[in-house]
């Protein structure tokens, strides 16, 4: 038997801390395990006894990259428990805020975390020495997303303006106009980003994923919809716990989610795109086709192109919302606490984010359950590694290690979120 050992300690260009262990025996991958050693922060435990109104502020702190997603899943879950439905301009403003977060988070991943893998750089700062215009375009595009979040939320990270029922203060129509100019530029830059990313070399790696995402009657999904899968699942968010389960594995402080009686599944841009292509705007559909994408995408390395298509869509949608915006009479719907259980599922940039709260009559949180996208994707990321690494075993250790890291980064794992990730240990066991 032959054995070879490679270690990567501290995976770079992901959000949070973890490691990867791969065991290769006689030229075949035996196991591939993601190890997550991000220290647990116990959000589900510390939310108990807090007021319902604090949930959007507290859960935002799970992730500095996608705080809006946590705020959105929290407010939808609590509104579900209280029988409140937010409609009209307040609903549109939530969608606009989410557009901002998708633009900011996806652009960070495309330009700063993922593209350096394709172009052979250690990071975006090193990439900027040879490609200054491209990196500046990325930064400017990211800035446009952050401008949306700041204007509506008060600041880019941990916005302060989201509340159960709506907002604390809603913007005047004229306040949104400067954003429109910035977003028109951003829409062009996003289209260039799709074309740029489509030109990278992608390994021929297709996977038969079970995709899971929200699907809405007539919109590309952000805040609302049914949970559907590419193998026929079609349920309300309130049925999530009946169909999905979380289990704990020794190597990870992040729980693993699976379909009950099924296997690993994938959430995120690939799933959303493949299940909702028909809901994209004509501009985004056209750009996707020109970039060589079909109506589904099962090559995780191409996720960078799919993210760029979603950024384009988000710019397009944000402009539509701004153009149609009518100032609401009140910044929030009336909220009357009552005892009950509420369910919320929204589309974080990295995929489906599920929250469930059990609330007491006065609105105190009695129990909280939060399932972030990276927890759901851990098993699929490990499966990607098992499937793909086999054909690269002839590579020298450093190249193979880099390829493994890239395979993980395809899914933009957010380890801070998942630990409620990466040291690579490659064991070519004797």
């Amino acid at each position, binding site marked *: 038997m032959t054995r070879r050992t490679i270690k990567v300690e501290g995976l770079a260009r992901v959000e949070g801390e973890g490691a990867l262990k791969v065991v290769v025996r006689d030229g075949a991958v035996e196991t591939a395990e993601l190890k997550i050693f991000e220290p647990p922060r116990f959000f589900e435990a510390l939310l108990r006894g807090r007021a319902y109104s604090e949930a959007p502020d507290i859960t935002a702190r799970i992730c500095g990259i996608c705080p809006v997603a946590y705020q959105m899943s929290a407010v939808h879950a609590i509104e579900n428990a209280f029988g409140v439905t937010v409609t009209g301009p307040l609903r549109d403003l939530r969608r606009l805020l989410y557009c901002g977060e998708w633009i900011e988070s996806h652009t960070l991943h495309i330009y700063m975390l993922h593209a350096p893998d394709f172009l052979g750089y*250690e990071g975006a700062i090193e990439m900027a020495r040879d490609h*200054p215009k491209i990196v500046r375009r990325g930064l400017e595009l990211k800035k446009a997303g952050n401008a949306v979040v700041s204007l509506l939320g008060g600041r880019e990270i941990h916005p302060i303006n989201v509340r159960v029922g709506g907002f604390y203060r809603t913007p005047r129509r004229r306040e949104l106009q400067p954003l429109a100019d910035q977003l028109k530029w951003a829409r062009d830059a996003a289209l260039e980003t799709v074309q740029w990313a489509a030109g990278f070399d992608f390994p021929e790696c297709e996977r038969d994923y079970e995709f899971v995402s929200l699907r809405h009657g007539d919109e590309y999904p952000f805040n609302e919809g049914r949970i559907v899968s590419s193998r026929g699942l079609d349920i309300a968010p309130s049925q999530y716990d009946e169909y999905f389960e979380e289990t704990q594995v020794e190597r990870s402080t992040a729980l693993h989610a699976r379909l009950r009686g099924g296997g690993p599944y994938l959430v995120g841009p690939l799933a959303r795109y493949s299940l909702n292509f028909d809901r994209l705007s004509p501009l985004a559909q056209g750009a996707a086709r020109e970039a060589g994408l079909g109506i589904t995408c099962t090559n995780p390395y191409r996720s960078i192109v799919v993210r760029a298509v979603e950024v384009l869509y988000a710019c397009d949608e944000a402009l539509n919302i701004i153009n149609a915006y009518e100032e609401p009479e009140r910044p929030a719907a009336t909220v009357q606490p009552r005892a009950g259980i509420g369910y919320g599922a929204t589309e974080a940039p990295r995929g489906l984010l599920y929250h469930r709260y059990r609330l007491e009559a006065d609105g105190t949180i009695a129990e909280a359950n939060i399932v972030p996208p990276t927890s759901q994707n851990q098993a699929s990321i490990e499966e990607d590694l098992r499937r793909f690494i086999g054909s690269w075993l002839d590579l020298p250790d450093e190249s193979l290690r880099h390829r493994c890291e890239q395979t993980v980064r395809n899914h933009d794992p957010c380890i801070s979120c998942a630990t409620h990730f990466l040291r690579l240990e490659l064991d070519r066991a004797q």
Partner: protein
Amino acid sequence: MPKPRRLKLAVWKFASCDGCQLSLLDCEDELLAVADAVEIAHFLEATRARVNGPYDLSLVEGSITTPHDAERIQQVRRSSRFLVTIGACATAGGIQALRNFADVREYLSVVYARPDYINTLATSTAIADHVTVDFELRGCPINKRQLLEVVSAFLAGRRPVTPPHSVCVECKLAGNVCVMVAHGTPCLGPATHAGCGALCPTFHRGCYGCYGPMETPNASSLTNWLHKLGMDDRALQRIYRTFNANAQAFREESEKHDP
């Protein structure tokens, strides 16, 4: 004249949400200039490239919550000329310090089916509880303008200018109507460290103290006012126990309202 050696900057993460180090990447207009002015020697969120220490300036995000991290911060200190903590986790323990007021074993059992797989400390503590800290930058998250000020100040060899007055002063500078006086909205602004630009009152809500206590706050007087506005002991304890729950002034004030 020979070009001076560029200062080596390192960014370290402990228990946190990544938001404060993201603030550096959120300086879209300045990031490339910063990367030109300093050598980014260790910043895992941004680059695989790693340069060995010692480092001239270490920015530390996150709190100490595991035995391993309690060791690691000692190594970071030994390899750093200046150590600056960034954000509420690193300066006060963060939201995860709520465990300091609870039983961490009970917390473990709520989140994990196999608590025995998890190695965690009973408390979440600030970096300054473990090593000497040269400067603390407040906020949950930090203000990126203040972060640039800190990096610029260390490049120039001076103290960073980050006013220690209360959020109230920022409100006055912004020309806001006081939400507490005019609308009876409970607000932690009078006791909270400036730096956010009085964001919450500007959006018609009360400050929730994410920058932590100001220098010498009169929290007990503020508590009297909040009580008059209808907050009971439970609500008062909650308002002081959020992202800076373990900062001394907020911790002591919250403990007065133990049931």
